[in-house]
């Protein structure tokens, strides 16, 4: 048997050209999972049998000469907050333990139609609230590069799965950085597309106006490939932009000659020195590749954290109210319905989820709406306006993804604010609805990887992938 390629694109080509079967590819990754999963805990559920059936079906199609999709035979892991019909979907919460959705998320439908083979559901911070995956009700996921450290969050499981070689690609969701930050901490590529380009139908909502689904991959080209497959208008999602799927793979190879790339001169500080150095190195690399580096300012960027931590919990407090023990999920018995609600939700939600629900409820409540939620919505517009002004001068912007490399377990759990500060560079793009991606670029303290974030304006994925691809090439010494 030919060696199983390590990239999704390579696998797709190899399976389509019958150099290797989908089943062989799958067994290769299942073996990797067997070898290290107990150490990493990337998965809530490995769907080995179902995956084998899917792989066999694809092999049968190929053998019979029937047409298969662009991802035929490519294994993929899905963050466990995306509904998979008949397959347990828990959001890493006790309140959904054992719940099997009666429907598929749109991204799942599209991946299946493309022939991807779902290997399992990955661990996350409960309901996608967190930056370390320590908030999972089922135990944390460990960073494959150093298992005493966090993989980041909230999509820690999906990031670890790719970084550990359990799957060539995976999907995560990003509300304030939950794809990009784990990508940076695990040394892989992570993409948050423009808000509205990937359907949220079937993604368990955390913050409706901020959530987006996106891919993890070991390389930029794979990230482009997956983004192409999952993007495009969906009539089941009213916030879905009425555009066809994104076209990106060419952009990833195009280079940055003639592009203007922004350096934010008033970026909030606090990044580790190696991270600052990596950013400078990244600018140097892009300059060498033919881009012009332009200074820009984003004067209100430092307020983004506050705006986010008022808007997201507010929306979440409402989105999570449906978990009441009536129709699905955990129910704690009680004498009356009202008591049942209180007991069920207290037992089913972890501390961080409860904290954010209360913060959000407070921010929306009578007498506080204007001061908190109302104001945060205005700050959001100010930040979007700042970006708009900057993008008059540049095509893309570079910042660090995370101010720190992967930290040790327990470092930040007792101080919510310090955990929230992990997202300081990623949050602004969610507020503005813009795309951003993290590309690995060097190592920092303790040898842990550093991620550089490429930001672009809404629907600016082409520019973003040009820069991401160039950074990757520079890193590889091409």
């Amino acid at each position, binding site marked *: 048997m030919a060696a199983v390629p390590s990239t999704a694109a390579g696998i797709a080509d190899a399976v389509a050209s019958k150099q290797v079967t989908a089943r062989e590819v799958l067994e290769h990754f299942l073996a990797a999972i067997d070898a290290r999963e107990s150490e990493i805990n990337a998965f809530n559920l490995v769907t080995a049998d179902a995956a084998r059936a899917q792989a066999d079906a694809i092999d049968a199609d190929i053998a019979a000469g029937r047409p298969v999709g662009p991802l035929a035979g490519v294994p993929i892991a899905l963050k466990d907050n995306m*509904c998979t019909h008949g397959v347990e979907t828990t959001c890493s919460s006790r309140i959904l333990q054992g719940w099997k959705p009666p429907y598929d998320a749109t991204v799942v439908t599209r991946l299946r139609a493309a022939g991807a083979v779902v290997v399992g559901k990955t661990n996350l911070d409960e309901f996608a609230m967190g930056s370390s995956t320590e908030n999972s009700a089922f135990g944390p996921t460990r960073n494959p590069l150093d298992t005493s450290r966090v993989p980041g969050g909230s999509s820690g499981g999906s990031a670890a799965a790719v970084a550990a070689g359990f799957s060539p690609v995976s999907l995560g969701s990003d509300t304030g950085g939950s794809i990009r930050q784990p990508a940076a901490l695990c040394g892989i590529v992570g993409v948050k597309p423009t808000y509205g380009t990937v359907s*949220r139908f*079937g993604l368990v*909502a955390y913050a409706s106006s901020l959530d987006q689904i996106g891919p993890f991959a070991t390389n930029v080209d794979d990230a482009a490939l997956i983004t192409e497959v999952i993007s495009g208008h969906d009539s089941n999602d009213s916030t879905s932009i009425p555009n066809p799927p994104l076209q990106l793979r060419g952009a990833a190879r195009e280079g940055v000659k003639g592009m203007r790339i922004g350096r934010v001169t008033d970026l909030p500080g606090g990044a580790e020195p190696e991270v600052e150095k990596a950013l400078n190195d990244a600018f140097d690399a892009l300059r060498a590749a033919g881009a012009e580096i332009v200074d820009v300012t984003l004067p209100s960027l430092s307020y983004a954290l506050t705006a986010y931590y008022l808007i997201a919990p507010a*929306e979440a407090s*409402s989105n999570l109210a449906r978990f009441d023990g009536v*129709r699905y999920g955990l129910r704690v018995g009680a004498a009356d319905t009202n008591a049942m609600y209180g007991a069920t939700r207290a037992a089913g939600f972890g501390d961080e989820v409860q904290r954010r629900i209360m913060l959000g409820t407070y921010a*929306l409540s009578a007498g506080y*709406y204007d001061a908190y939620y109302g104001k945060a919505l205005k700050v959001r517009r100010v930040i979007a306006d700042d970006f708009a002004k900057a993008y008059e001068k540049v095509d893309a912007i570079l910042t660090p993804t995370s101010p720190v490399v992967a930290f040790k377990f327990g470092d930040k759990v007792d101080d919510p604010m310090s955990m929230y500060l992990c997202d300081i560079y990623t949050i602004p793009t969610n507020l503005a609805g813009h795309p951003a991606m993290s590309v690995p670029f060097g190592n920092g303290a303790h040898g842990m990887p550093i991620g550089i974030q490429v930001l672009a304006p809404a629907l600016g994925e082409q520019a973003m992938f040009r820069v991401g691809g160039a950074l990757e090439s520079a890193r590889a010494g091409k």
Partner: protein
Amino acid sequence: MSDSTLSSVKATEDQLLEGGWELIVGLEVHVELATRTKLFSGSPNRFGDEPNTNIDPVTLALPGALPVLNKHAVELAMRIGLALNCRIQPCIFHRKNYFYPDMPKAYQISQYDIPINADGHLDLPSGVRIGVERAHLEEDTGKSTHVGGATGRIHGSDYSLIDFNRAGVPLVEIVSRPDIRTSEQAKEYAAELRAIVAAIGASDAKMEEGSMRVDANVSVHKPGTPFGTRCEIKNVNSIRALGRAIDYEARRQIDVIESGGTIRQETRHWDDAEGRTHTLRAKEDADDYRYFPEPDLVPLDPGQEWIDRVRAELPPLPAERRAMLQALTGYDPQSEAVIVAVERGQHDYVKAIADAGGDPVRALIYVTQAFAEAGESPSVPPADIAALTVLERDGKLSATQAKTVLAEIVANGGGDAAAIAAAKGFEAMDNSAVEAMVDEAIAADPDAWAKYCAGEEKAAGAIVGRVMKASKGKADGKVVSAIMQSRRG
């Protein structure tokens, strides 16, 4: 907000309640829209199906579900807005957050400060104008049944069962200004609103079936003083109950105030069997709905083109239909026959009979008497009824005979009036024969005739009775009366 911004309508002297109290009533009416599917998802909007069959991820508020707005529901909401003289405006949706088992998301998608329809009015048939503050879109809840208690109500039940078929059905909530001053006006408003909403095809608006629900906000005060504290009355299931509930509640509040008490702002439940309102269980914390703009939906801006098209296609409103019948028959638009015919949607049928050569007045009377059930198209061909009206008008049949023939035509779904009459041996007597019988009756009872000629209308009965007996019922009573009057001079 000062009372005058709420309402500037003042009760007339005779509208004040005993003791000089002015009644202030505002009505909140919810109508279920006649769409095929729900407001935010494609499950059927259908009554009476097996429980929990018209369900989808949105209806059940499954994790990951997202709402998508039903275009036809918007169109029907616009029809309602135009029929109520509202301004249709760009609008958004809000979430109203509260916990209840039949509310699957624990929030209702509704409209808050920017509704689709605002600032309209409804003119009561009696002429009074009632302001309509807003008519907005929102989704309905599921339905709970309570098991184990004595009355099937929540209080004392052992548990409840929830059916989500109704969850997500589109509603328009129509909120009147507190311009209503009598319970009669309230009933008139509810009846006219029902007729309007049904006439434009927006809803079948049946209170008894729950497709139209009326809640009344009631308060009392002495004119010249600030408005009183109001109570909301729920569970009113008919127009008649609405009147009774308002009357009861007004009297209850007056009694409380006159005996030195104060009215507590609360929601009260109307018990039609007992004829009283009582407090629903008091809540611990006033619910804070934490309204915020619905992030899963985008703004709605119908635009002038769509508004103009809806306006152009709007069916005639009840007031127009009543006016049409008035022009056709000469009847007052407030007369019972006209109101009933329009309410039941029979106005076009009456016109069809007239168009087929029938006598319009008789057509109106026959239709409203013979077709008691609502139904725009009774299945009897208009021409058949037209022929019958002509026979009666021309004196070939008496009114009583015509009624009998009509009953048979209706029962058979049609028929040849003349043939049926002939088969029954009906024929009206011609007028000269009736005249002769009248003269014979006068001669036979000179006392009665003398009294009748002196102005005692009741004395006519004896004469008429003799003529009817002699003619074996074939004489037309109206013809007899006409002859007697002309004899009297």
